[in-house]
């Protein structure tokens, strides 16, 4: 049985429609107007234990809303949701015992008290047996390098330190499921890297199921084996990273560095009818579908006509790919007419 199972999961928010300024506020006070926003629109999602899922989408797509339903914070408007045998919002506290949450924008630590005190409070709240608490705390302190700021209040440590402490706090009770909502937001490369390594290790060694939302594609490549993309409340892609590349990033580009400018482009173009050629001075690039041509064929077609000094092949970048999905330049799902406008989706996340 899957650990997370959602069918037709939907969340609709009711938003006050106000005109700007004081007059608008007064008007709203007397004639209330509301607009319904579908933040999450009938999604089906099934996650098996041990998977690490990247949950992606542009701002306002419904990522956080989904996570908030999974954690039991929000009550779904309709649809069914079962997480490890429980309906999260009905058995919120039982659900909480089995999960860890890190919201990049917020901290679970108590602001004014030393980090270690927050951990001790978590120990009591989650009723973690003393021996396991001690062992976990020692391990995470070592792996995340928490020792240097353990006795400093959470409000006074740096963002990177706080995030590491938050991660430790979310995991002390050894949850089956870890939700990470933009865990690396605003962090420097070194901290990002240590957090990614840590999560990767967690998935490998403890078999923790991870669900991660992020805008940082480095997070995905380092941690996740599955990518779910949501846009305007609907899931538009669900599959492995390789699938995503195979299905939608078919293009590759070979860049040739030439000894002298080509005398004429015509013979080259004639040899590569289905490709997109671009010549600029001493460089020549050929964009091709890697399932139709092998890189060697392209080279073979180009070499006889020009003198090549060097060449390189560009792999499709996930980042570029997903950017194109967000911008609507690349449609992953069969297009279907919806009433949702991008504007309504942005408002729903806010």
């Amino acid at each position, binding site marked *: 049985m899957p650990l997370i199972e959602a069918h037709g999961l939907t969340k609709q928010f009711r938003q006050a429609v106000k005109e700007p300024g004081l007059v608008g506020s007064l008007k709203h006070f007397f004639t209330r107007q509301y607009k319904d926003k579908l933040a999450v629109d009938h999604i089906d999602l099934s996650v098996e234990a041990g998977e690490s899922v990247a949950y992606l989408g542009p701002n306002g797509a419904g990522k956080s809303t989904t996570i908030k339903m999974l954690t039991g914070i929000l009550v779904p408007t309709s649809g069914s949701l079962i997480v490890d045998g429980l309906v999260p919002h009905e058995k919120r506290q039982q659900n909480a015992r089995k999960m860890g*949450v890190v919201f990049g924008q917020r901290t679970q630590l*108590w602001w004014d*008290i030393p980090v270690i005190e927050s951990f001790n409070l978590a120990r009591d709240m989650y009723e973690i047996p003393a021996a396991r608490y001690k062992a976990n705390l020692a391990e995470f302190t070592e792996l995340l390098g928490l020792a240097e700021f353990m006795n400093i209040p959470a409000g006074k440590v740096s963002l990177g330190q706080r995030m590491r402490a938050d991660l430790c706090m979310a995991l002390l009770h050894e949850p089956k499921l870890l939700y990470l909502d933009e865990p690396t937001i605003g962090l420097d490369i070194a901290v990002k890297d240590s957090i990614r390594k840590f999560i990767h290790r967690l998935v490998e060694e403890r078999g923790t199921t991870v669900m991660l939302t992020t805008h940082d594609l480095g997070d995905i490549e380092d941690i996740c084996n599955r990518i779910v993309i949501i846009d305007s409340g609907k899931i538009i892609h669900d599959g492995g990273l390789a699938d995503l590349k195979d299905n939608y990033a078919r293009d590759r580009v070979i860049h040739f560095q030439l000894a002298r400018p080509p005398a004429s482009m015509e013979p080259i173009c004639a040899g590569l009818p289905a490709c997109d050629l671009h010549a600029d001075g001493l460089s020549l690039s050929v964009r091709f579908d890697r399932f139709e041509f092998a890189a060697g064929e392209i080279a073979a077609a180009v070499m006889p006509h020009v003198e090549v000094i060097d060449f390189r092949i560009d792999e499709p970048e996930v980042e570029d790919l997903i950017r194109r999905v967000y911008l609507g330049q690349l449609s992953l799902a069969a297009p279907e007419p919806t009433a949702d406008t991008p504007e309504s989706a942005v408002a729903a996340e806010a």
Partner: protein
Amino acid sequence: MAVKVAIATRLRRARWLTYIYFRCLGQQMKAILAYEADFVILLISAGLVQITGFLFIWTVFQRIPDINGWTFWQVVMMYSLIFITEGVGSLFFEGTWRVSRLVYNGNFDQILVRPVSPIVQVLAGAVGFNGLGNIVTGGALLAISLGNVPAQWTPGRLLMLVILIISAATIRVAINLATSACAFWIKTPWSMVPMFVHQLGEFAKYPITIYSMAVQAMVVVAIPFAFVSFFPTAYLFNMESWSAIGLLTPLVAVYCMFMAVWIFRVGLRRYESTGH
């Protein structure tokens, strides 16, 4: 047997929740004490407020010997019960005043992802050391007024006194909790509703018989502040027609807490986790 086990489990749960409550509250206290200067200033200002309050009552009763058939000491007892319950509310349950802000900026999320009752977390969410002043002043006034109760202090009566004080405090905290839940409906960072209702408690500093029927109905039935001060005092002073109602105070307390928890839970379902 099964019932026995169920009761034992519930008791264990209640004990655990109480422990968690005091653990959270203890951390809040540490946090405040960390800013020592602030703490000292707070204590001094709280003390000054209480002294002014006491001087006010004293001045009033220099001029007005009794109000609507209620003597000076009876009114002092009502005052003291309002003070004490207010103090208990601030010192131990100040967290109810933080709810609207938590809900407004979405920080209530943090409470909901922990495996502890949100209501317990809300109640333990803050410490108002200024409540200490109310408790001390109120306690002193209560002790003096009790000395002027004409009845004999049997063990039963003493027990009832303790029950009445606990019930009165419970009613006040329940009212705070219930009104704090309005944050789930009214989305502003500082909702005025809890403060407004809180101020209605001022009515209960005087015998309710001096008010119109509408006000009486409000403080007896709608928002039962009368059970915080008026009815318990009537019972302790054996005021014929009112004292029997004073015995209902513990029941009213249970009812208020039950309603407050229910309202809070209904509100919680509406929580929309705004912000990011």
